[in-house]
């Protein structure tokens, strides 16, 4: 069941607050909500929370035969689940618009942008490659309700996509696949983690997703990391995914408030700064956990 | 590999011949960065069809001889001195067109009239519609507007006299009066809060249509006339609905009209056509084709122009089906749209 749309006083108040440069939760316009990352016992099992939104990402790898037309490349599949447990508005059984949008965006951010070196997942040409499966489970994305597709993409209790992509990035960084050795005869030995230290994935780059809500009351304002109500009342949503090296992986601004190119470029610059912050933040957290788990860092 | 390698340059060469048609081109970066937005360096021949200045800054352009054409996003005038009407919106103190069409001004009110659009009803308009749905105590009627019109059961005349009260039994047999697909002529009575129009047929001129065929034209081609019911001499009646629907039917003789002894009250809601002889059928087809031709050339349709065109086709002895041929159509339109001075 869709929650009812925001009431008139809420809407008017949100406008009035923006005109006075205040956000409803007291944040600055470019201030994100607090982030938290917790790792599971396994490598590649990560839970990320952004405000009240929580997402679990899990990576596992399995050895399969490659597709005949790409014998040198490993396979990557991304699976998303946005079940009713994430919020009352998601129906069981049916994949919601938000779920499709989330899957599509994660696919663009991590797979189509070539974030993961697929050739490094090849074990034996044409015979054996790793199949990397990235499962994303949204644990909580409360009180979203968005009629437009763009808002749906940015998702949930606000920052669903941001949170999910961060969880994925962390999981991919955190994950290690077993070491393998190929013998001359074409025989492949997979070593247990105890025997030989597992190897991290070869990542070309790590894109971070940053969403903005656009709102024009007196003038066009861009809000970083919009929360639930802000997202529902937004005139338009801009989704950017980019790396700390200032490389854009995804720009998605479909519909909503038309933006001046300068505004867009301004947002990209802010997002680039945010991506750098996230990169360091993520790095620190992943290393901390490795240290805690006594994982050999190579 | 070698094959493709060969065809590469060949491709480029051959393609050049087709690319000669390219009309839009960009210059390399240095020149680009030096020119400002809006005058980006496209060659001068680009500007064809754009020769006259479409932007009118002043407010004195309205007295000009020719009608002013505009299209969405174009600034028309200052919003301080003028009021915005249909087909415009206001942004940063300017009245801006939102449709492509003709600028009209009535005193301080600026409107833009689109030349092709759905019918926008006004109270008192005569329209022709088609029943799309039968609902409790009302019919939904497609009248070429942005929403289906509503015909309330209380807004129709039922057989048995004008003063007859509507009974519950009438509610149950609404399909006996109008059912889905029936055509009717009605008048716009009022509007609902959401902008949908309400129709009525409480006049014996209005009601169900039979004995003819419907032609649909753009609503702008139908003008408000003294009467929208007209008879052509060849035994054909014409009803020009302001919504662009035109009904062409067999002539109803005067003594069969309402209030005369020949008037058949039972036939008001009949679904059965009368006998129509071949000559009348041909005449109906001829008028239909004339209207199609006029509409295709965007000629406004009035009783006089239809009559004139009818006479021309008879005079020229044009076969009905030949009317739709391009050259005949052109000749017909040229004949009827001659300047009045040349005609007399």
């Amino acid at each position, binding site marked *: 069941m869709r929650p009812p749309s925001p009431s008139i006083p809420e809407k008017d108040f949100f406008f009035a607050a923006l005109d006075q440069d205040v956000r409803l939760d007291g944040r600055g316009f470019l201030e994100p909500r607090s982030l938290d990352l917790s790792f599971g016992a396994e490598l590649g099992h990560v839970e990320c929370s952004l405000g009240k939104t929580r997402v679990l990402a899990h990576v596992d790898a399995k050895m399969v035969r490659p597709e005949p037309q*790409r014998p040198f490349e490993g396979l990557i599949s991304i699976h998303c689940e946005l079940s009713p447990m994430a919020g009352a508005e998601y129906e069981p059984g049916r994949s919601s618009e938000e779920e499709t949008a989330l899957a*599509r965006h994660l696919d663009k951010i991590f797979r189509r942008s070539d974030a993961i070196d697929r050739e490094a997942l090849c074990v034996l040409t044409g015979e054996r490659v790793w199949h990397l499966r990235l499962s994303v489970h949204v644990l909580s994305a409360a009180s979203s309700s968005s009629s437009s*597709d763009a808002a749906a993409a940015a998702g949930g209790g606000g920052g669903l996509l941001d949170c999910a992509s961060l969880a994925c990035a962390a999981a991919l960084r955190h994950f290690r696949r077993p070491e393998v050795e190929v013998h001359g005869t074409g025989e492949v030995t997979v070593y247990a983690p105890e025997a030989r230290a597992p190897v991290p994935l070869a990542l070309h*780059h790590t894109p971070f997703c940053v969403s903005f809500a656009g709102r024009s009351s007196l003038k066009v304002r861009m809000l970083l990391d919009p929360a639930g109500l802000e997202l529902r009342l937004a005139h*338009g949503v801009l989704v950017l995914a980019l790396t700390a090296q*200032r490389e854009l992986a*995804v*720009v998605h*601004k*479909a*519909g*909503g408030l*038309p933006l*001046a*190119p300068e505004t867009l*470029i301004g947002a990209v610059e802010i997002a680039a700064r945010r991506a750098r912050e996230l990169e360091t933040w993520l790095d620190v957290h992943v290393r901390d956990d490795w240290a805690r788990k006594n994982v050999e860092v190579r | 590999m070698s094959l*493709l390698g060969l065809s590469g340059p060949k491709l*480029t*060469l*051959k393609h050049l011949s*087709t*690319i000669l048609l390219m009309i*839009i*081109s*960009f210059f*390399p970066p240095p020149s680009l960065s030096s020119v400002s937005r809006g005058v*980006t360096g*496209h060659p001068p021949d*680009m*500007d064809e*069809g*754009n020769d006259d200045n*479409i932007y009118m800054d002043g407010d004195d352009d*309205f*007295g000009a001889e*020719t*009608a002013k*054409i505009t*299209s*969405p*996003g174009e600034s028309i005038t200052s919003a301080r001195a003028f009021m915005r009407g249909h087909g415009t*919106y206001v942004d940063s103190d300017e009245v801006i067109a939102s449709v*492509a069409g003709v600028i009209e001004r009535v005193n301080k009110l600026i409107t833009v009239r*689109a*030349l*092709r*659009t*759905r019918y926008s009803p006004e109270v008192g308009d005569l329209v022709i519609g088609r029943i799309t749905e039968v609902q409790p105590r009302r019919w939904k009627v497609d009248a070429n507007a*942005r*929403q*289906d019109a509503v015909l309330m059961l209380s807004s129709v005349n039922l057989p048995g006299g004008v003063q007859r009260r509507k009974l519950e039994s009438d509610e149950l047999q609404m399909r006996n009066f109008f059912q889905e697909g029936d055509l009717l002529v009605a008048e716009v009575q009022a509007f609902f809060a*959401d902008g949908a129009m309400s129709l009525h047929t409480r006049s014996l001129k209005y009601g169900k249509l039979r004995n003819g065929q419907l032609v649909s034209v753009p609503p702008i*081609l139908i003008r408000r006339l003294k009467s929208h019911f007209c008879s052509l001499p060849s035994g054909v009646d014409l009803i020009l609905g302001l919504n662009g629907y035109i009904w062409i039917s067999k002539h109803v003789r005067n003594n069969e009209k309402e209030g005369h002894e020949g008037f058949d009250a039972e036939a008001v809601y009949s679904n059965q056509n009368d006998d129509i002889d071949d000559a009348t059928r041909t005449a109906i087809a001829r008028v239909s084709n004339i209207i199609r031709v006029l509409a295709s050339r*965007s*000629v*406004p349709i009035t009783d*006089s122009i239809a009559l004139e065109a009818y006479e021309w086709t008879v005079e020229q002895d044009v076969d009905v089906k030949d009317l739709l041929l391009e050259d005949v159509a052109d000749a017909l339109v040229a004949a009827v749209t001659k*300047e*009045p001075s040349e*005609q007399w």
Partner: protein
Amino acid sequence: MRHTPSICGFAFAEWLVISLLYTDSVLTDEPAQSLRIEILNEGGFRSDGRRQYELREIAFDSSPQAGADGSARISHGLTEVLVSVFGPREARVRAQTLHDRAAIHVEVNIAPFSTGDRRRRGRGDKRVQELAAMIKATFEPVVQTGLYPRSQIDIFVHVLQQDGGVLPAAINATTVALINAGVPLADYVCAITGGVHAAAPMLDLTALEESDLPHVTVASMPRSGRLTLVSMETRLHVDRFEEILRLAGEAGTVIHTEMHAVVRQRTKGLLDGISTGLRASKPAEDAMVEDE
């Protein structure tokens, strides 16, 4: 022209075969693509002989498709898209009506013969759905839907030929079709693709170029210069992105001129018919479109 196969026609046919070969390889996504054909040669020419910022020919045909309230066919290079607009009209499904504005409904149909691989894409196809969602999102803020509460505007997009830039072609054709239907818009929407090859930005990519280069689709509104759609899904450096954005904005104004000329010509044609008709039928006592 019809009797003798012209050189153009011949070249065209052969080109089609070649592009067919390429699209086949696009399917398999072989990375060796750029080895086979130069995207931008030393002379500054692209594979089809254009320069970096040169657009392909764009032609619109506004001739009405019977029954539609407005329609337009665009041929943009070899890409061809037909768009029909119906409405604003009574909503077919009452549950979908919005109480304060018109609902826009977009349906995209990609003809199987529009590409070399001849794949039938049903309505449920991901790409088709995404294309429809993008077109819908692009026009929602531009169409003045608030004027038509509870109504519905249907946009049917038929992709007849694909050679890169399908989305921008569809958007441009939709703009013209909506204008032809007399639907009020805040402004034109002009869309174009841009890409980058080895730090050299290019505009209006063909299918061949699209499969090889990072590219961005940009839809802009020429009056304000604002962007209603920006979509990119391949890796690109921020600085390059800014450059492309700027170029695409300028290309938008050029396309606008083109679209504007088409709309104006059509409006003029219709108006001519009306005014000559009026002059003929009566003295201009109740002239509606003429000035007093």
